[in-house]
């Protein structure tokens, strides 16, 4: 993988995006399979190699983005694979194993990533900072068209795009919005939002998606059904109704915290800043939790002199694989805690 890649550029951590105080990123994923091959789970090694070849040809010659980097996952270290997971460019599952598989990433913006031979032949993903689902969809739709102009997808008129798991069949689309909801968490209203989301058959997940806990009050909201509703209807629902509602509630909760519990809020935020500036040992979850409070403080003007961009970058840099890559060597967990605290102090001007 290219060493030239700037270690901090991640689309979803940009500070100046639409609704960026609450919405970290908008992500769309399409599950696609080539006609004429078994799905990945049942494909033999030789099939997988062929799928990889076809995908590589289509992706690298299709003009999908100005510059696309092809990463054969068997040719990079497990640390590099973990870095990709932390950057939300591949799934945990895709980082594992030794089967022929790859990921293509648009360079340097990392907006586009295509996992090849994950659960489906192709998992195309486009990510944008803040709330910009329509922008993400326009891009992914074009990319999908370009690939489809070169190879046939498995498709049926009844079930739509055919996927390995029937829960993805139809549009094969997964819309996912990463939200920062510390206000709702502090005011104890988060459960209400979660219940409402579940009622609309939306999934609420943690920072790292399926099976991960919500650390630092970051949540992913995504659709669970893919059949019977067009992409545009789903997106409109997300962008015009669901997400704005949650954003509104979160802002309301934040405002009410400011007005009614200002001291408590300030205390939380400044304690977090104190910990981040002076701790000598930091666990990954603790760092994320404290950064979450700090982010809230900056957005509410409770803290001055710390840039949102710095906090956003630290969210990524304090992850285990990023830390090790920065330090240029593997580290034990105890070593990482020291290193994490050091990196955070350095970025936040602590002592």
């Amino acid at each position, binding site marked *: 993988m290219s060493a030239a890649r700037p270690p901090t550029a991640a689309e979803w951590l940009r500070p100046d995006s639409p609704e960026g105080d609450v919405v970290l990123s908008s992500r769309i994923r399409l599950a696609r*399979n080539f*006609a*004429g*091959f*078994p*799905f990945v*789970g*049942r494909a033999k090694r030789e099939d997988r190699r062929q799928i990889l070849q076809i995908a590589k040809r289509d992706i690298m010659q299709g003009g999908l983005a100005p510059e696309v980097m092809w990463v054969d996952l068997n040719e990079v270290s497990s640390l590099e694979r973990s870095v990709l997971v932390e950057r939300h460019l591949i799934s945990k599952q895709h980082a594992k194993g030794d089967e022929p598989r790859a990921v293509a990433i648009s360079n340097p913006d990392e907006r586009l990533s295509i996992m090849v031979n994950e*659960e489906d032949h192709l998992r195309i993903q486009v990510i944008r900072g803040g709330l910009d689902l329509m922008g993400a969809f326009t891009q992914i*739709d074009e990319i*999908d*068209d370009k690939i*489809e*102009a*070169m190879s*046939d*997808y*498995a*498709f*049926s*008129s*009844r*079930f*739509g*795009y*055919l996927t*390995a*798991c*029937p*829960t993805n*069949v*139809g*549009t094969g*689309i997964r819309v996912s919005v990463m939200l920062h909801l510390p206000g709702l968490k502090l005011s104890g209203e988060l459960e209400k939002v979660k219940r409402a989301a579940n009622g609309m*058959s939306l999934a609420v997940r943690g920072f790292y998606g399926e099976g991960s806990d919500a650390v630092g009050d970051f949540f992913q909201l995504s659709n669970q*059904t*893919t*059949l*019977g*509703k*067009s*992409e*545009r*209807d789903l997106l409109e629902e997300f962008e015009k109704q669901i997400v704005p509602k949650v954003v509104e509630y979160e802002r309301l909760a934040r405002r009410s915290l400011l007005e009614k519990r200002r001291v408590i809020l300030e205390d939380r935020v400044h304690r977090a800043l104190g910990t981040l500036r002076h701790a000598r040992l930091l666990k990954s979850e603790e760092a994320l939790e404290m950064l979450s409070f700090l982010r809230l403080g900056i957005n509410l003007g409770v803290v001055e002199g710390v840039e949102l961009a710095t906090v956003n970058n630290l969210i990524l840099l304090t992850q285990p694989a990023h830390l090790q890559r920065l330090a240029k060597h593997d580290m034990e967990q105890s070593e990482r805690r020291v290193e994490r605290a050091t990196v955070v102090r350095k970025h936040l001007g602590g002592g």
Partner: protein
Amino acid sequence: MKRKCDRCDNEATVHEVVIRNGEKAEKHVCEGCAREDGFTVHAHAPISDLITKFVISQTKGEKSPVKVGVCGSCGLTFAEFKQQGVLGCPECYQTFEEQLSAMIERAHEGATHHIGKSPKRAGGSAGRHERITTLRKQLHDAITAEQYERAAALRDQLLRVEKPAAEREAAAESSKPQRGRGGSKA
């Protein structure tokens, strides 16, 4: 409070209420006295037996006969699918359509048919996907069997089927297929 038998000191476990000429007569006796009175008392059946019998009677007949199918294209059985949660190949959707339909409907909140984007080329010629699938499979078999002449012929056929993509696209461009939301605003 446990009730004593009307006749002895044992616990009353058999209870009878008789209403005769508008008058209620209750009788509470123990198992032994009940037998003497001519009641047939069933020994307590274990609750688990009762539940089992109940469940069996409920599920009998209701269970639709599950077809034991095997996908002709990839060899996956429905049992394997149920175990792994993923299908073997695109053809599995046809092979197991009957069983899958209900499952898909449940997973997608009652939806049974796709609405939304479809590949531009899919509408072009029916059976094209199946043709490509068959050809690829035959080609693969030919190569494994080291029948290279046959393989070359199959490859050419495959190219012919796959190639008209560009022309097909040009045609599709003029009659823009519907994408995204269906239907037109009247």
